[in-house]
Every structure is written in structure tokens, then in C-alpha cells.
């Protein structure tokens, strides 16, 4: 099985993540979509490392990305709590203060 399969899985996961971000009405799903996109990137890192490289660079990046994602999730959940506190809602369509 070649690298194309991994890339295809990654692309699918990315597309799902995008759809999740754009379409869902709950901000937690948006966060999940972001995680999915990050993991799609991880799959790419690992796959390209496995097929093209001879070091551990790609895998190290993947580990970094996972740590980044954990940190991001912590910050994002804090933001979500504040958003809920401010708007009494966690619907992204109602959080439109940037417009002003």
C-alpha cells in the first residue's frame, strides 16, 4: 500500500474537519473539527516520514502537534466558557461581535 492511501485518508479527515467547523451549530463541534484537521496533518507528517524520510523528524512534529493540540484545547475550552458566560449561548452564529 503506497503513500496515496494515507494521503487520501488524511484528505478525507481534513475535509470532514472543515465541514465540521463550517456547518455545525455548536462551538464544541467546531473545536472537534479543528482537532480533526490537526490529526489530518499528523497523518500526513507520519506518512511522509515513513515513505520519504530516513529520520524521525515527521514523527517528532506529530508529537509536537499533539502537545500543541492539547494546549489549544485547554485555551479554547476556557474561551468557550467565557463566551457562554458572555452570550448565554455556544452557537458560533450568535457570537458576531467582530462585525462591529
Amino acid at each position, binding site marked *: 500500500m503506497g503513500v496515496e492511501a494515507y494521503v487520501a485518508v488524511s484528505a478525507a479527515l481534513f475535509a470532514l474537519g472543515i465541514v465540521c467547523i*463550517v456547518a455545525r451549530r455548536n462551538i464544541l463541534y467546531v473545536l472537534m473539527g479543528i482537532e480533526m484537521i490537526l490529526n489530518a496533518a499528523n497523518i500526513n507528517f507520519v506518512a511522509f516520514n515513513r515513505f520519504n524520510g530516513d529520520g524521525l523528524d515527521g514523527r517528532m512534529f506529530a508529537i509536537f502537534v499533539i502537545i500543541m493540540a492539547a494546549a489549544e484545547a485547554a485555551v479554547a475550552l476556557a474561551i468557550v466558557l467565557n463566551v457562554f458566560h458572555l452570550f448565554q449561548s455556544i452557537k458560533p452564529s450568535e457570537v458576531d461581535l467582530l*462585525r462591529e
Partner: protein
Amino acid sequence: MEPLTQLDYKLLLAVPLIPLLGYVVNIFFGRKLPRQGDWLLTGGMFAVMCITVYMFFKFVGAGGFHESVAEGGPAYGWLYSLGHGKADGLNVVAGILYDPLGAAMLAAVGVVSFFIHLFSMGYMQGDRRYHIFFANISLFTFAMLGLVLADSILFLFIFWELMGLMSYLLIGHFSHDPDSPRITQAAAASKKAFLTTRVGDTCLLFGMAIFYWKFQTFQLSELWALSAEEVARNGGEYPAWMTVGGLFIFGGTVGKSAQFPLHIWLPDAMEGPTPVSAMIHAATMVAAGVFLLGRCFPMMSPTVLAVATTVGAFTALFAATIGCTVNDIKGVLAYSTISQLGFMVAAIGTGGLGLVAGLFHMVTHAFFKACLFLCAGSVIHACHHEQDMQKMGGLRKKLPITFAAMLICTLAIAGAPLFAGFYSKDRILQSAIQSWATGFGGASAFAVIALTLAAALTSFYMFRLIFLTFFGEPRDHHVHEHAHESPWPMTTALIALALGGVFAGKVWLRDFDLLGHHTWFTDMVSADTLYPGVQLANQLTIDAHTSHLAHSWALGISLTVAFLGFSLALWIYGLRRLDPARITARLGEVYAAVARKYYVDELVNATVVRGTSALSRGLTWIDARLVDGVVNLTGSFNRGLGFFSAGFDNRVVDGLVNWVAYTTQAFGAVARLFQTGRIQQYVSFAVAGGLLLAAGLILF
């Protein structure tokens, strides 16, 4: 001849500075000082007198010529760093020039000014502006002392102008006193004096400018040397431009020394207090014009000198005739001053000996004319400000000291032997006669005749004054009864100046050379000692024989005419053998013309004053109509332009700015539609954009 020491120079520098300091103190603090500070200024003048007389005896007995710039004395650079000798451009250095003429004049000014100050302490008592009077008269003295000491014609001119200003202030002294009965006359007289002398001052300024333009220096000693060089280069003839420049400088003398036709200010200057008249007529102001001629003599071409002789001789005779008709005691003295100044100017015009004689007469005249004026002041003081001689008479017993002093000085001015005026006037006539005999042209011939007649008239009108004032029966008993001798400061001044009137010409008690073959002034001052090392091309060489003969003639003539004048006065006014009224009736129109001062004032009023007024009215019209019209037109034009400009601004410029704003707003309204603030929408746009970009990259 030793150069002056630094101490001597400091003393000379102190001479003008003492009255200047006195002025500053008195003008600011005079009112608060005891006796309004008159003792301070008079004391200062006493110091000045001591210094000037000391310096005079110390150095001038031996003769000499001292210039502080050349000898390392005090000299101050102005517009240029201090340097010696000639330099390029504006080399203006103020230093001291102390030569025989300066020494004699400085001593005369010092002595006369001190006694005038002393006299004023009595005469001006109770004046409303007593301290200001003293301050001003002190600054007046300062100006004259500075003028005498100045070594450059520019500084001479500065002091000259200062003197003009001070004469204006002092003549107009009573114009600030609301109680004075002659307040308007005083104001008019001071204006007249200032404006008339201004004509002369302007001439002098032009003259200075012409010489500066050619020679690039104001230093007198350099001007003399350069003039001599210029004449030598021109083959011994004076170039035309020097004649023009010399005439302009002579114009300064005409204004300041009250020569015809600018003499009109001097009689009116009598409106000032009497000490001021004495100051103006004797030591300062009018002497400055003659002094200037003495200082600029080497720059004068023979033509200028001939003009000077003619003008001077004419003025001498002209003023003497008027002097015979005046009834105001000070007026007689005023015209006598004009006449005597004419003598001096005419004498200097004849050159050589005449130069010395004219300057000699200036110095002796300072003493006796100051004394005469102060005597007149004393008489006026005694008669409660009555100045008309027709109302006096018989005052000799009431005012013995004044009478004695006035008689002595009258003898001096009339040229009686042994008195000061005799020695100097004698030499003036001698110079005129000898230059006539040697062929100096028609000017000298005119001078001989005019000066002889003027000398006779001088004797006549002065004795007329004496007889009318002091002899005969009192004509106004009210005036006579209240007359009293003046207080001691005044009489002291009179006695001292009367002594000057006797001995200023020659101290004949010393060697009994009564006819004055040698006098201190002629021994000390000559063209050689005045302008050392300068070759004068504008005077004649006169052999000893002619000179001797001329002296004999002059002696005979002057004694004869003085005696004739005296006899006539005695006949008419002393013994009353002839009624003056009958003589005036016989003379008719002639007398009227003389008594009206030959209508010069009327002529000047009709031409110069009216002309100036008419000109100024014309100029006012031009100003009001043409100039204002042009200005208003420009204003209206600018206003129109302003409206146009405002319209352009409001419509075009503002429109453009607003248009930009509207456009930006319109774009903003469109762009606003995309800015929903919804993150998901933004992400959709980003993804769609990314997809489009990718599709584009793949397809194209």
C-alpha cells in the same frame, strides 16, 4: 614737543564726561537733591574750568599738536576694530585732538560755561523746571566740549547735532511753563531755531559725505593731508568736487553760525532764558560754526573762501544796521552776535592771518559776549523782566557792578584799545586789507569796506545800548524804582567775565606792548601749528612789508571808526543833541526796512514757510486722493479676489474632498456586507478561496 601723558589724556577725557555725568544725575535725581542739584553741576563745571585752564597753561605756552589716535592716548573704535592710521572701509575711530585752537577754545568754553552756570544759580531762581534747566545747559556744554575735542569730522558732527537739539530744548525752556506769558513765542522760536539750523546741518552732512566718498576717512588730520595731496596732484589747483564739498561744509557754518540768509533763528532764540542766550551766543552753538571752518580750513578751495568772505562781510554789515534799530536789549546783542560772527567768517575767508584772526575773535568774543548777555540778564532781572531799552535809563547808579561790567565789554566789542576785542578785530581788518592788497580778488575789497562800516556801526549801537540803558533820566519810573543789583553769584560771574573782556586778547600789563604786535593767540596759533605738515594751497604768501603796512592801516581804521561810532552814539543818545525820532523820520522807508529786519523773516515766511505749507497741502491731497485711492482700489480688488477664492474653495476644493469621502463610504457599504463577524463564514470564505486558488493552479 612732548606728547601728552596718559594722565593728561584722562583729564581731557574727563572734561566732557563731567557735565555728561552731571546731566544724567540731575535729570533723574535733580528734583530730590537739595537746591535741585545746581551746586552739583556748577561744581562740576568748576572742575572742568580748572582742568581746561590747567591743560591750557601746561601745554599750549609751548605750542603743539596732539592726537590721541596717533599718540596712543584714549581712542575708541567704532564700526571697526581700533587701529592706527588709515584703514579700508568704515574706519571710524573716536579720539581726542588737542591742538592750540582746541586748547584755547576748550579753556574759553570751560571758563565761560562755568560762569554762566554760576550766573544761572541766581537768575533762574524759582523757575518751575530749575533742575531740568541745569541738566540741559550742562549737556549743552558737554556737546560743545566734545565738539572741540573731537578728532574726526563724524564725531564733530554728532556733537554738532546734539548741540542743535539742546539749543532747541533750551530756547523752548519757557514753552513748558504754563505761567509764562511768552509760551507760544518760546515754542515757535525753538522750532524755528531747530529747523533753520537743520538746513545747515544737512549741508554739512552732504559735505562730509562728499569728502568721505573721495578720501574714505573721517579723521581730520587725514582729511587735511589727503586734501593737500589731492591739490598737489591736481597741479596746485583745487578740483571742482572739493569746491562743492567745501561749499556744503560752509553751509553748515552758515546755519550754525547764523550767517545770512540762515541768520533768522538767532534773534528769535532770545526767547530762551538769558543764560541760554549767553551760552548760545558766546561759548557754544554759534562758535561751533566758526570752529568748524577752522577745523576744515585745508579742505576749502579759494572759491569757497571767497564765498565765505563775501557772506561773512555782508552778514556783518547787514546785522549791524539792524542792530542800530532794535529796542530790545537782548535783540541788540543778538544782532551784534550775528555781526561779529560775520567778522569771524569773513576773516577766515581771507586765509592765512585771517584764519588766526577769525579764530582769535571767536575766543575773545566768547568772553565779552557772554558777559554782555549776562549783564543784559542782570538788567532784565533788576527791571522785573522788562526788556525794552526805551523804558530803562539812568540805571547806572542802581546797578553799579552790572554797569561797570557792561561798559568794559562794550568797549571790548567796539574795539577800544587795550580791550580784548581790539586785538582780534584789528587783525581781522589787517588780514582783509593785506589780502586785498596782494590781490585776493573782489571779495576782500568788499570785506574791507563792509567790515569797516560794520565796525563803526558796532561801536554805535553798543554805545546806544549803554546810553539808553544806564544814562539819562529814567523813562519809566516804575521800572526804575524797583531796580536792584543782582545777588552775588550773578555779579561774581559778571566781574570774572568782564576781566576776560579786558585780558582775553592780551595781558598788556605784562609787557606793555599795547598795540598788540604779539598776542598769546597769534603766537600760539598759526596755519603751521594748526595743520602740521600740511601744505596749504589756499592762502597767499604775503611779504612782511605789506603785512606791516596793513597792520598800520587796520589800526588807524579800527580806532577811527570805533571813535566815530562812539561819538555819534554820544551825540544822539548821550547828549541828546539830535532827536532820534527826527533821524528816523528823515530816513523814512529806509529806516522802516531796516527796523523790519530787511523783511527777511517776511520773505522766508512768504516763500519757504508758505511754500512748504503749500507743498505739504498738495502732498496731503495726493496722499488722500491718489495714494489712498490706489490703496482702496487694491483693497477692493483683493476683496473681489477673496470672494472668488472663497467660492473656489467652497465648491471645488471642498467638493473634491467630500467626493473622496462619499466614494470611500460607498465602497465601505459594499465591503461591509462581507464582514458578518461570524467565524464559520470566514472559514468558509478562506476554504473556498483556497480551493479556487488550487483549482486555478491545477487548471492553468
